[in-house]
């Protein structure tokens, strides 16, 4: 185990998979000569050359489609979006092409490809650059969606995504790139898609979350522990397919649940988690499930307003207390 940043963990995953399989290539804006807008691809051009580390014009729809075509012809593209906000321009390729090709062709054309990049808000980037897209993407049959919250998960899930024969969406976090954690440097370690991980154990309540909100949930868990409340933190890691069993096991134990997500409330990931809970754990619940999410507004720029809009540890603590009927 080595301590490294989330950014370096992703970089290591890319390097290992590029080394392992000649058909893997990385394509996107500024991925090569600039070393990546967020330096995730640092050093890869030097190591693998311009054939496999490909700078593109600013043309998200176009290069996402190039990835789809390359996958149809048997390569394993990794398409980097500088941020998922820009990927909105490419959704036709992600949704109409990549996600449906296998089905429309009755199994003839697999789509072994990855769409990756930072998702959700950073700091004061305002409305167009601060959006969490997981519910949009997880809505689509034919896609897998992962949202790693730690460096170890970033590496293991990205590697699994690259090796998967389906189109996999990898949602990273700008605010996560500098976070550190222990990572296994064994290149053979992958984290299977579709498996949640219990990041922390407690009996009083389950916090179900993913991606950037894992750290928020763990902060909340620390604060709650000081007040004598111990929570499970279930990190979904993969949003689609979702590990319903892990959710149900935790909620059956704690009888209470809070779902924390970065995106908006309406039709959000939390709504789906709550549906799974009511379906699987109806008789286990001692309180209605409470959701923590971004305020139902475009992200404002002003520091104080942005803080009010974002889900955070304090809101999560309050939500846990609410489902436990504790005075705040």
């Amino acid at each position, binding site marked *: 185990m080595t301590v490294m940043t989330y950014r370096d963990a992703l970089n290591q995953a890319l390097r290992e998979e590029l080394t392992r399989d000649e058909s893997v290539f990385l394509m996107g804006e500024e991925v090569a000569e600039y070393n990546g807008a967020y330096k995730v691809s640092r050093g890869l051009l030097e190591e693998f050359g311009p054939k496999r580390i490909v700078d593109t014009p600013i043309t998200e729809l176009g290069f996402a489609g190039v990835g789809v075509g*390359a996958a149809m012809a048997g390569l394993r593209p990794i398409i980097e979006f500088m941020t998922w906000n820009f990927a909105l321009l490419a959704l*036709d390729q992600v949704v109409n092409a990549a996600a449906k090709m296998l089905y429309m*062709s*009755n*199994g003839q054309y697999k789509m072994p490809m990855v769409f990756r990049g930072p998702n959700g808000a950073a700091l004061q980037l305002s409305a167009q650059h601060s959006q969490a897209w997981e519910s949009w993407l997880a809505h689509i049959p034919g896609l897998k969606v992962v949202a790693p919250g730690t460096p170890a998960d970033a590496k293991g899930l990205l590697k699994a995504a690259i090796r998967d024969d389906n189109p996999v969406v990898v949602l990273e976090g700008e605010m996560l790139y500098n976070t550190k954690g222990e990572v296994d440097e064994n290149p053979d370690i992958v984290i299977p898609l579709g498996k949640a991980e219990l990041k922390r154990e407690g009996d009083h309540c389950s916090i179900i979350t993913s991606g950037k909100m894992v750290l928020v949930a763990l902060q909340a868990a620390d604060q709650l522990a000081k007040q004598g409340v111990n929570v499970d933190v279930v990190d979904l890691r993969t949003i689609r397919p979702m590990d319903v069993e892990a959710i149900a096991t935790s909620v059956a134990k704690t009888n209470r649940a809070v779902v924390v997500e970065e995106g908006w409330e309406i039709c959000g990931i939390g709504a789906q988690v709550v549906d799974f809970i009511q379906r699987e754990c109806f008789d286990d619940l001692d309180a209605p499930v409470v959701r923590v999410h971004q305020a139902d507004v475009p992200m404002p720029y002003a520091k104080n307003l942005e803080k009010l809009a974002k889900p955070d540890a304090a809101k999560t603590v309050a939500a846990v207390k609410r489902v436990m009927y504790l005075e705040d």
Partner: protein
Amino acid sequence: MAKKNTSSPAAANARDTAVAYLHSMLMQRRFEEKSAEAYAIGKIGGFCHLYIGQEAVSTGTMAALRPDDYVITAYRDHGLALARGMTANEIMAELFGRATGCSGGKGGSMHLFDKKLNFLGGHGIVGGHIPIAAGVAFAISYRGGDQVCVCFFGEAAVNIGAFHEALNMASLWNLPVVFIIENNRYGMGTAISRSTAQQDVVKRAASYAMIGTSVDGQDVFAVRKEMDEAIERARKEQRPTLVEVRTTRFMGHSMSDAASGTYRSKEELDQSMQRDPIVLLKTKMLSDGMITEDDYKKMDDEAKAAAQAAWDFADASPEPSPEELFTHVLSDESTVGAANDAELAGAGR
């Protein structure tokens, strides 16, 4: 076949080539007429865009390709699939929504696929497949292969961003792809004069430092010659080409609209139909002594019989089994709502 004019091997070759073209075009024409008939009585559902009038484009282009080259197109794909070598049976079965269809009944008219023939679909979003063609060519280049990808789309697609993005990258990266504009002058019901500022669409090529050419799409020999050059340029020089093929669809945009009378006048259509690609080819072959009227009738009867046989095959084929609803969503069949889906499927049976 007539035995005239076979005095030299070259003449015999020329006759064989022309006969193959005529056969291919008649098969498409009679298949599409049968499709229209099936649609009218509800055997075929959804959208159905017929290729009638444009057969010289598909036939002339496919004849210029190697079996290991790649073909991708939009939703007006029946004729192209037939010309590439897919069988009338598997295509008609797909239109009928049957398990024996080329896409197992899951794709329908707009999504014909055949991996054996590198026929990459059948795509339903205007322009969406143009970057995909660039990606296929990228993969060819990546592997150092000498195949070519040809990509068909209508003239209205030149106005969508995907066209611009794809052609820019294809030229920038020297990709072996031929972009073929099937210019039938109508994007659904909108005439090119009402949609496109630069109506000489091939001029777009200059924006991408790419060679652009135009050709008469009703003349199968002219199409073949133009495609030979463009494909050679892609194969030998790794340079893309934009080819405008001027053609006419004799039917409506889809089965939902009349061939004329609304957005297109009857006079205009009648005039265009004077240049029916099959009649032009037949006339030339008759005058060159390659075939007789009897030969033609025999070939036409064969094409009609093949279309009827395809109908019969499709009609007798089973529908996809209910289990097929959930296959090929993912390559490993793991779906998010699997438990719920299984219940729903069970309830439906």
